[in-house]
């Protein structure tokens, strides 16, 4: 049995009167690429935000790397945050810092490594995500959309996290870059032993690089499992999402 990295049980989330999550469950195992899928407004981004401590559910238990997020102490939360990397949809690079400084900040705040090694590591991470090496001296405002995504990924990978959260990693990228991005994520998963949780809409990503996923809809998790498992289920939301019977993915 693989180790459970994230476990959500009976999560209820509501904004005022409107309920977003009605007792939902999902489980992420070690070393898998897990996706949260669903239509717009199905609450997948909210669930992701709850996992990374940006938001709290109204009730239910959420465990990330064996920490219960409801009873977590600020110190534990700090050490948990050091074990994950988050890639936001718009990159969220600090605009007053260059790409290199954006990455360096994490090393300066969290480690005591000599500057020479930090320098080497920044060059490595920038290389790893496929940015040209001069990109470290550029500011976020000087980068294209795809480069911002890559720079943000480099920053998310800075501390060699165990867990990587990606919010729509391929949105706004051209198809070729999207596939390269997917391939990179898969390679990193294999070599660094990462566990990846992502929110995505990209059918190619779902088809080629995702191991398991949860499909959210109607305030519930409609289906959870591998693509083949889910396609066996006959449920209106599953049928709609994968466009069964028309075009898109055939079971």
């Amino acid at each position: 049995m693989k180790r459970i990295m994230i476990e959500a049980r009976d999560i209820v989330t509501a904004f005022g009167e409107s309920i977003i999550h009605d007792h939902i469950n999902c489980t992420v195992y070690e070393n898998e690429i897990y996706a949260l899928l669903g239509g717009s407004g199905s609450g997948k981004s909210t669930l992701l935000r709850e996992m990374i401590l940006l938001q709290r559910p109204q009730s239910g238990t959420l465990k990330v790397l064996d920490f219960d997020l409801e009873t977590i102490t600020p110190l534990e939360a700090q050490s948990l945050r050091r074990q994950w990397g988050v890639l936001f949809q718009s990159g969220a690079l600090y605009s007053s810092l260059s790409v290199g400084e954006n990455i360096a900040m994490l090393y300066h705040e969290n480690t005591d490594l000599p500057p020479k090694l930090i320098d080497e590591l920044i060059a490595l991470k920038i290389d790893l995500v496929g940015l040209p090496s001069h990109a470290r001296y550029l500011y976020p405002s000087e980068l294209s959309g795809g480069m911002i995504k890559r720079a943000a990924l480099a920053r998310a990978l800075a501390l060699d996290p165990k867990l990587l959260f990606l919010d729509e990693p391929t949105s706004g990228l051209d198809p070729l870059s999207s596939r390269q991005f997917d391939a990179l994520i898969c390679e990193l998963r294999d070599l660094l032993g990462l566990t990846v949780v992502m929110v995505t809409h990209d059918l190619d990503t779902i088809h080629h690089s995702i191991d398991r996923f949860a499909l959210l809809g109607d305030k519930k998790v409609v289906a959870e499992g591998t693509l083949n498992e889910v396609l066996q289920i006959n449920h209106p939301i599953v049928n709609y999402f994968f466009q069964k019977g028309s075009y898109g993915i055939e079971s």
Partner: protein
Amino acid sequence: MQNSTPAKIEIVDDVSHTLLQCRGVWTLPHLNHVAYILETLHPRASVIWDVSQIDEIDSAGIALWQLYTRSFEQEGIESKLVGVKQDQDQLYKLLYSKPHEALQPPKEPSWLFILGRETHQNVLGIGKFLAFLGEAFILLLYTLLHPSQIRYRSIMAHIYATGATALPIIALSSFLIGVVVAYQSIVQLQKFGADIFIVDMIGISLTRELAPLITAIVVAGRSGSAFTAQIGAMKMTQEIDAMKTMGFDPFTFLVWPRVFALMIVMPLLIFFADLIGIFGGMVIAQAQSHLSFSEFIHRLQGSLPIKHYIIGIVKGPFFAFLIAMVSTYRGFQVSLNTESIGLYTTKSVVNSIFLVIACDAIFSVLLTELKL
């Protein structure tokens, strides 16, 4: 995996080579110590890294090894690696698949270059501001020919936001200015027994100079910065681009309503500041030299010619025009990064206060020459 024995390195010096026995967990949080040992290491002719006893390694560990292998190489010392596991090799290949070229950070230009560039940009900036004014006036002409396009509702909303809600802060600042001027002058005037001239002092200085200036500075800080930030935020979220594509001209929709509203509101605010400022002076005059309110007002009627008051009020629309034009212009200059909003808001307030004071100086010289 969980028992994290920190990274260790044992140095075994032999006659011909130095053996580096690496063990433990070579991951980011544990590498500190090893990095400093390697920094002070002076190896013999060749180095052998024995990595067979490393339990776990991440990209930081590999980078550390690679960094010092390279620095040994520069000193002419060969390195050999023994006991590499397959996953370590794969990780290395992923990280160092492409050749790394050493990259020099871009050079800082000289101060002379920066001075020249800034001067050039400032000169261009004046031209751009004039172009902005020109475009605004052409669109104003067009709008005046089609009065149905004037945004009355928007003007009203801005009158409320920049005028009515500014009353408390204007009242407070002008009252205090009245107090300060009265207090300082009364001490001097008492030396000559000329207390009664405090009325002339307060009346003329406040209505002609101080009230308009204080009001303009408060409005520049309060509404000017708000205009820049509002338009800047709209620029960042591409709302302005959206407006342009729908044929809503930003000058008609955003600039002129703000300019008109401020030009209407400013004289009213100055009048209000006159009243409160004189009241502040009256309070001090009574407290310090027992000049009653009725005496003060009686004296004021005789000593304050109407022209001073009118000059003060007339300055209002001019100041308002400068503040609103500069702050909306700065708003349009905001670019897509978050820093620029702060930068241009600062510039907007600094520029508009400077322009207001410069404009006041011109008024002062002109009107004195005209014997007004």
